């Protein structure tokens, strides 16, 4: 094991809910404490803290500043923030740890989607000159992607429904999931279209949630955790923004990120994908070359709970937790940013 080996040694997440009465920072405070406690790390020993959130999601400029209270930023701390899913905050912390001067980091991601209307707000995430003024909304873009996938012959509507059924069934075992249960594919296929060919169940739920992770390096990781979830590889890649200028039926950036992270296509015990619309799971499975019987989204994935800005980091936690608890040896977690899989991150983890 090299000194630069970095592992997940602590974690905690809130159950995702349709609407939390607590504010975002009130959601964060207890789980940050819980993650540190699980790692047995005193807050004051943390070498670097990094958070992921989105001002527009929280509903105001500088909204991220309030979340600093969850980090325990007094006395002053070495800390940064990305306007991205917490998975990228973890990336920044992972980079920082490789400097060699500190050996622990605290990472968190959070978001309350309940106060805003996603079709209004995320529509402003698109090119402000050419797309946003047209009123292009994320559900419609996802619908276009789904249509393209059907037309390519790579998937059928039944495949979409099977993704939903599988994820909701898996979610029954996840106390943090929001949408769970047994649904027959036939029943799902009878539901009306919302953005053809997408039906309501092909969409992610609207969720409020937060997640925290503790990272440690080398010997410190071993001291804090009996079975650290070592990050064997971590990479992310972005694609062209204009949806008309890329193939929406494939995820080349996910394939590239996985390769750069060192994924060799071999078997993995668990895979967690941030596919927020059901067709995206099929696209990502193909991008990663996963076998049909791969253990994908035992947590229920983003279709069961989608705390935007935390969803990707939750995927990392779901994989790490299984390694730390001993039910898995190897895993891959995926996070996505932007719309229709524009930006993708792959985190490969392994136990000893």
């Amino acid at each position, binding site marked *: 094991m090299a000194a630069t080996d970095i592992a997940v040694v602590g974690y905690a997440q809130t159950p995702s809910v349709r609407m939390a009465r607590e504010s975002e920072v009130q959601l964060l405070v207890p789980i940050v404490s819980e993650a540190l406690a699980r790692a047995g790390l005193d807050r004051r020993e943390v070498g670097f803290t990094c958070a992921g959130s989105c001002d527009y999601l929280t509903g105001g400029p500088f909204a991220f500043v309030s979340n600093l209270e969850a980090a325990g930023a007094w006395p002053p701390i070495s800390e940064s923030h990305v306007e991205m899913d917490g998975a990228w905050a973890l990336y920044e912390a992972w*980079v*920082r740890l490789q400097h060699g001067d500190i050996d622990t980091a605290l990472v968190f991601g959070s978001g309350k989607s309940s106060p805003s209307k996603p079709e209004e707000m995320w529509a402003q995430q698109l090119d402000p000159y050419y797309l946003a003024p047209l009123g292009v909304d994320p559900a419609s873009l996802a619908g276009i992607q789904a249509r393209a996938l059907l037309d390519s012959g790579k998937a059928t509507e039944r495949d979409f429904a099977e993704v939903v059924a599988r994820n909701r069934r898996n979610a029954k075992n996840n106390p943090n999931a929001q949408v769970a249960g047994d649904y027959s594919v036939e029943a799902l296929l009878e539901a009306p279209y919302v953005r053809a060919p997408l039906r309501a169940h092909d969409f992610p739920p609207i969720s409020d949630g937060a997640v925290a992770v503790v990272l440690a390096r080398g010997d410190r990781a071993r001291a804090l955790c009996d079975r650290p979830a070592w990050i064997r590889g971590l990479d992310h*890649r972005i694609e062209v923004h204009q949806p008309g200028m890329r193939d929406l039926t494939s995820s080349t950036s996910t394939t590239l990120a996985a390769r750069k992270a060192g994924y060799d296509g071999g078997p993995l015990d668990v895979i967690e994908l941030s596919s927020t619309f059901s067709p995206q799971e099929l696209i990502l499975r193909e991008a990663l070359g996963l076998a049909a019987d791969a253990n994908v989204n035992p947590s229920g994935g983003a279709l069961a709970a989608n705390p935007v800005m935390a969803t990707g980091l939750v995927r990392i936690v779901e994989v790490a937790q299984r390694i730390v608890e001993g039910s898995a040896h190897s895993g891959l977690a995926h996070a996505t940013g932007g719309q229709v899989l524009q930006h993708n991150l792959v985190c490969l983890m392994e136990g000893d």
Partner: protein
Amino acid sequence: MAEQCAVIGIGQTHHKKKRADVSIPGLLREAATRALEDAECTWADIDAVVIGKAPDAFEGIVQPELFLADALGGAGKPMLRVHTAGSVGGSTFIVGAHLIESRIHERVLAIAWEKQSEGNAQWGLAGGRGRGIGAGGAFAPWIRAYIEKTGAPEYIGWQVAVKDRLNALKNPYAHLHLPDITIETVKESAMLWDPLRFLESCPSSDGACAVVLTNEANGKKAAKPAAWVAATAVKSELGQFPGRDPVRPQAGVECAHDVYTQAGIGVPRQEIDVAEIYVPFSWYEPMWLEGHDIAGPGEGWKMVESGDTEMTGSFPVNASGGVLSSNPIGASGMLRFAEAALQVRGLAGEHQVDGARTALAQAYGGAAQYFAMAILRNHPA
């Protein structure tokens, strides 16, 4: 042992109140292209992009880096978006430097920007509500407290305002070129946030700043002299809590000592040749001189009064004209780091401070609670 990080390319836009001649992608490409040319690199040479800006609400685009990926040669590359309020330009530089120092990438483009004319920063700062206080309104009471505590004479702020704008006349990229500015004109200008007057305050600018960062081997091979990153640090503290000192924030003191220690600097006042410090309102020059232990308590304003911080003085501050002369908010922090780098590379042109070998760069943000600092040198460690 971390890799050394070298700054081999620097580019910035002509900062103006309204750059109606370029779209946002055009603004960024202007800075990035200049940085790439300076570095004698192409877009293809860049391994990763780190981008920073102030809150998205300032232009009304959610996560604009997503659409800017196209303009910045981002396809197929990693892209990170940093957001740490006013210090973001500095922390964006630092995140880029970390990618080099950790040996993850060989060449990183770090870019920061703001196109305030395409939005409304006053609306953004007010959270879209009435009774907004802007940024100056938040700092004015603390400035008042500094003046009362130190007994500093009222003209110190005016002096800084004049100094920075006259320095800016030597910086072709600066937004404000006010050749006729004097102590009198500053004193007579409208009161905005008592005690801060209009001419003591930063402008609202459109602008971008980009740097090309690379490792030791490439830095040594570069055609032009590189600037070498001797130290970086970020420190944050809670913005508001009982007993907090917002005038001399502890995070600012600790951040400074962190970079001084890393760079082996014992007496910053003597061992730093030139400083680029985020001074958006005149009084922040003496306040940060004290807040980073360059001057002792109550001595910061005396450095200003005696002319120490002039370009010809013993501790030149903001030879570029600083934030008081150009303030594309998201980029302002990176401009400090870029201008500090230009100084130690000997490439600051008319606003070059002779013999600048060690430079301090500082950016701050939020309720004076986020700090990003670096020491840049003209040689690797």
